[in-house]
């Protein structure tokens, strides 16, 4: 066997391994990237809500409810990223 063929046999890289490796690195990136947008969004949202509550303390109740709603909608994107992470990593 030539040196080249031997080298190829030793470093053989099956399709299943390639898929596993790609899934593992993709899983990490999926969650990391999915967390960027909602992170900025929730920070901005809560900051504005705090400002609203500080300017008008009597409206704190309404602002708080709306804030939680907004957080729930924004957070959904990060959670879908987390579900993709679980699917890639464990399924």
């Amino acid at each position, binding site marked *: 066997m030539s040196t080249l063929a031997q080298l190829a046999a030793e470093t053989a890289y099956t399709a299943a391994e390639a898929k596993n490796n790609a899934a593992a690195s993709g899983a990490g990136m999926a969650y990391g990237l999915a967390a960027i947008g909602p992170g900025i969004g929730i920070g901005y949202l809560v900051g504005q809500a705090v400002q609203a509550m500080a300017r008008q303390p009597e409206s704190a*109740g*309404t602002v708080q*409810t709306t804030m*939680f*709603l907004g*957080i*729930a909608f924004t*957070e*959904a994107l990060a*959670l*879908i990223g*987390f*579900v993709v992470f*679980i699917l890639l*990593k*464990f399924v």
Partner: protein
Amino acid sequence: MILGAVHFPPIEDVIEWPAFLFKDSDLLAFNKIALIHFLSLVIPTIVFLVGSRGDGLVPRGARTVAEGVVNFVDTQIIQAAIGHDGRKYMPLLTSFFLFVFFGNITEVIPFFQMPANARMAGPLVLALTAWAMFISVGLRHHGLGYLKEVAFPPGVPKALYLLVTPIEILSTFFVRPFSHAVRLFANMLAGHILLVTFSVLCISVWGASALIIVEIGTFPGLVAFTAFEVGVSLIQAFVFTILAAVYIGGALHPAH
């Protein structure tokens, strides 16, 4: 490798529980998740049944709890998301709130330590109930005009309907139950995995002589995240209920 001793269990060990009752039956098999669901049905029922006795002029015991929950759902969820005509959805929304909350809080209760809502079945059934509810409320109050309101929201330039109508139909009737369920499910699963990770770190470094210094970081972390998860349980129950209320309110007053 310094973390060579840490062995993270496969995900099946963390979220799948063997049946301990009616093991042979597919339909009646009863595991920890079913037990939690059963308890989160029975405990609020008992509290409300006990609390509804007497004339209630001076609320005490179970009645205080029941009135507190009803008052919370009324002021924070129904008045905020539906309005005064939303009182008739109080039983549904209160049941949602308590059922979801008990399914979540078992995450931090010893011997359970598993949120029932970290399995997709529970949140999915609840979200589909809310979905069926808001569609039937819309159809009942506005007839087929409800579908027209959803597909063609007023105040949009005519040409934009080409873009808006498919998006609205998809997001209202198809994506809503899915995102409603996934929001609760993924939050609880993430919290559960977080607690499992910290517990595994704590246990693994306990025996290792030199690594015990890591415990200074991991054990307070575990305690802090357990407290954090109590808050998450409450907020997710609140968010799930208020979203159901917002959907019902949207079907009741589609114009805004």
